[in-house]
């Protein structure tokens, strides 16, 4: 599958109008999975509206990309962070989730491949410890837009908002293991740029 994520910063007075416009534009792309939702409180650098589209192939996205980009050229959209990437979500247990979360991050250039692999392995281990993650995917970015040259998108479907702000944040696999890659005080740090942490409501079992 081929995924497209766009995090839109939108002038407050225009959000409802732009939301409707982007939803309409997303429908026109004929993506197999579409999510265009206001972000929830607690998102950081995550935009006001989260757009996530999943296509069968990169070519299918490319055939729709220009028209969708035109929709996003609305003058009320002040800034866009985004990425496109390949991959297939992995379900974690039988339950479905109601919150979709996307983390855009940039691994520092010149980080050696073994270190990147260890970082990716640790991110991928998190769902084993945190059942509130009902589905997930870690993708390497092909095309990035916005503040940083994003290298990875780590996305999850959570049981609910508490699963994200509670279990995910509070489990030791997060703060005592994975977080060191993001901590400028740790010598292992490889993610130095500010990340995009964005989440919104989703329909049950969105990441399939």
């Amino acid at each position: 599958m081929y995924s497209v994520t766009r995090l839109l910063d939108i002038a407050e007075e225009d959000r409802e109008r732009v939301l409707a416009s982007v939803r309409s534009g997303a429908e026109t792309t004929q993506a197999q999975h579409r999510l265009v939702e206001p972000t929830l409180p607690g998102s950081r650098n995550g935009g006001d509206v989260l757009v996530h589209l999943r296509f069968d192939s990169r070519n299918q996205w490319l055939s729709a990309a220009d028209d969708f980009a035109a929709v996003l050229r609305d003058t009320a959209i002040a800034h866009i962070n985004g990425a496109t990437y390949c991959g297939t979500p992995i379900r974690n247990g039988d339950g479905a989730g109601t919150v979709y979360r996307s983390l855009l991050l940039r691994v520092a250039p010149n980080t050696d491949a073994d270190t990147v692999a260890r970082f990716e392995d640790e991110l991928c281990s998190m769902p084993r410890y945190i059942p509130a993650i009902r589905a997930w995917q870690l993708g390497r970015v092909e095309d990035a837009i916005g503040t940083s040259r994003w290298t990875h998108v780590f996305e999850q479907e959570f049981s609910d908002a508490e699963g994200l702000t509670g279990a995910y944040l509070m489990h030791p696999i997060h703060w005592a293991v994975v977080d060191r890659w993001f901590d400028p005080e740790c010598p292992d740090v490889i993610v130095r740029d500010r990340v995009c942490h964005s989440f919104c409501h989703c329909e049950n079992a969105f990441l399939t």
Partner: protein
Amino acid sequence: MTDGRVFVIDRVVTKPGCARAFVDIYLAEYAPGARSRGMRLCEVLISPPLWSDDLANTVTISWTLPSVQAWWEMTWKGRPDPALGEWWSRIGDLVTERSRSVAAAADDVDRLCDV
């Protein structure tokens, strides 16, 4: 039982003859900011316990925070401040290698993982 306290442990191998200078600078420059972010200094251990111009020392500094939430709040206060990372770079001349780890009491592990 430690009520879910979180320990932050800096382990620093100093260059020969640099341990005392490192500890002095750490306590004078780093510790005040760490305290303002909610960290409480437990102890500063020196191994071997002697100041020598010929030996490398391992300095182990442990801090505590009262909870995981307090640990996150500490990081949220410190992470946007570029001066923190720069401070660690600046004292690099005194240091051969270092690590930072996060720990909890063994009695707390099951509870911490049950979230």
